């Protein structure tokens, strides 16, 4: 464990441990922390390890400890490129480099949730100190080539602890959220426009739909191929409409394709519901994964064949309806549904929760 700066009066004695999931064993106390903080499954260390091995810009995990007890964590993409089409080099034992890199505190596979979590017991001031300590440790870990840190998709609750002088903060696309104010599914469906109700009745009526947790009957490669194609199509449309961030006309995309091995592990989890839609010949038309979280279930991956390839229009309405039904029947407080295509989600009754990004350039890191 890397010790932090010695505590000064009035600050908590925190330390930060930074690990590369590809080579480091699971940090001590991590499973308990996951369970106490009720973190989403993307924080599972095995999934982080898979994500890191199969990413262009792989995550490292920063664990903030109070003594030996984890009280916070950040998933940090170490970005060497937004253009180069290559996976990150395998870990060599040397983490420092002069090569320019930047860090993004971001969950690329669950982009509406912050990649920064704290135990509720930490005050804003303590969180601020912990984050400054994290930034100093990250600078030490990555070396002189670190250009800065971008905290992406942070909630309003976290921004005060991150923001400060010479730090640039801006609001980004919000996450779609449906608060559970319904007693029955019919309460919700009654709020929909007639044409959406009509779609809901008919769109999947003749399809073979299977849903469940811990699915072991799926071909992860088939899912990944459909998902990556869907995502590429959606990105093309989003970039065509100027929805994604650009700098100097460049598409600043630090994400990677979603690998089959990751999906394979993900859909086998007991807290992930996977719904597949197949036509009469067994062809996969669409699928969805939903995170069955007790506080904030999330409609996660959604992928569908395009109409040109034999897909069916508006199939997502059926998927969302099942998500809403799940939320209502289990009495869960809300349902989230990502940050893209907010217009479609608004039509299904979703509101939004604001998110912000904060950029911290090198000169103010740790200050």
């Amino acid at each position, binding site marked *: 464990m890397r010790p932090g700066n010695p505590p000064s009066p009035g600050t908590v004695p925190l330390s930060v441990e930074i690990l590369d999931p590809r080579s480091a064993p699971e940090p001590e106390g991590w499973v308990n922390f996951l369970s106490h903080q009720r973190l989403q499954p993307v924080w599972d260390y095995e999934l982080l390890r898979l994500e890191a091995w199969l990413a*262009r810009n792989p995550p490292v995990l920063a664990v903030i400890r109070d003594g030996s007890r984890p009280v916070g964590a950040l998933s940090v993409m170490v970005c060497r490129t937004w253009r180069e089409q290559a996976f990150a080099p*395998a870990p060599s034992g040397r983490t420092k480099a002069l090569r320019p890199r930047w860090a993004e505190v971001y969950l690329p596979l669950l982009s509406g949730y912050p990649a920064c979590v704290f135990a509720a017991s930490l005050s804003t001031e303590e969180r601020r100190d912990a984050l400054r300590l994290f930034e100093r440790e990250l600078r030490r870990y990555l070396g002189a080539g670190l250009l800065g840190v971008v905290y992406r998709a942070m909630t309003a609750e976290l921004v005060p602890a991150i923001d400060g002088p010479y730090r640039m903060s801006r609001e980004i696309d919000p996450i779609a959220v449906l608060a559970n104010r319904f007693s029955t599914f019919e309460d919700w469906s009654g709020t929909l426009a007639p044409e959406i109700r009509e779609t809901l009745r008919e769109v999947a009526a003749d399809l073979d739909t299977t849903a469940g947790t811990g699915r072991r009957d799926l071909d992860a*490669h088939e899912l990944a*191929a459909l998902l990556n194609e869907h995502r590429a199509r959606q990105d093309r449309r989003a970039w065509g409409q100027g929805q994604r961030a650009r700098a100097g006309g460049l598409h600043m995309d630090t994400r990677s394709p979603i*690998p*089959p*091995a990751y999906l394979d592990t993900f859909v086998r989890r007991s807290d992930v519901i996977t719904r597949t839609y197949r036509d009469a010949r067994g062809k996969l038309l669409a699928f969805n994964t939903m995170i069955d979280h007790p506080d904030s279930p999330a409609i996660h991956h959604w992928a569908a064949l395009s109409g040109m390839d034999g897909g069916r229009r508006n199939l997502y309405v059926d998927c969302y309806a099942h998500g809403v039904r799940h939320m209502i029947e289990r009495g869960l407080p809300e349902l989230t549904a990502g940050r893209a295509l907010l217009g479609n989600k608004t039509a299904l009754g979703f509101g939004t929760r604001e998110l912000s990004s904060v950029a911290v350039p090198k000169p103010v890191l740790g200050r």
Partner: protein
Amino acid sequence: MTAVWSASYRRIVRSAFATVPLYRERWALDGREDPVVVPGKRGTDGGALGAGEMARKRVDLVPLAGGSAEFDPCRGLGPVLADARPAGRGTVVAVLDPAIRRPPADLPRGVRGCWLDSEALPPAAMAELVSTLRRNGKVIAVGPDKTLGMLTAALPEDVAARVGAVPQRRLDELDGGPFGVLHDPALGYLGAFRDCGRWHVDWRNVFVRATSGGLAFTVLTQRSPRLVDILIAGGVRGRVEPCPRHGTPVVLT
């Protein structure tokens, strides 16, 4: 030659590990050997993939930068034909494999190539073959034995015997010649039976190594789909040795 050949292969392995999703996933999580890319992980069958799995996951054989996911079963005919039955200027090369359905694209300059449907040999193409043979030109026909037989049966007797037949063989059906080319439906043409009586690998374009799953083939010169360490023909056990006469690699099954 072996050192240069191996160096080319190692460069392709490093590149595939860095840029091609299927190899990245397989070798990062399970490992591979010769060369090892993740210390401590040696993989299954040395990291080689079965041809069926490769075909099923071919979308992940495309490097991150993009490229074609289509196999070219006619790839490599030009180089292997130079070893199997050299074609001079004016030669017509006819491919008769119903599974290929495309003409060769890498024949030497001055050599014409075509693909012929052996079930319905087109009269115009047949007339051209007959005309070439009657002008003392050279015609080379490449394909499975059955389709080669169909072609010669359809030609007039006076020219049929002058067609240079080059039967194509899968790795699990290599024979004693006197002519032949080694073919795989996904990797294309991989080697040829030469005058020394051995099956030579097209070493400038293809690498082969023995693994516990059988002989694993790599196409060194194709960017996408990237084909590295593929166990063709269901995995055939064998050895790779230098030819005592030519000094270049031969496969012994």
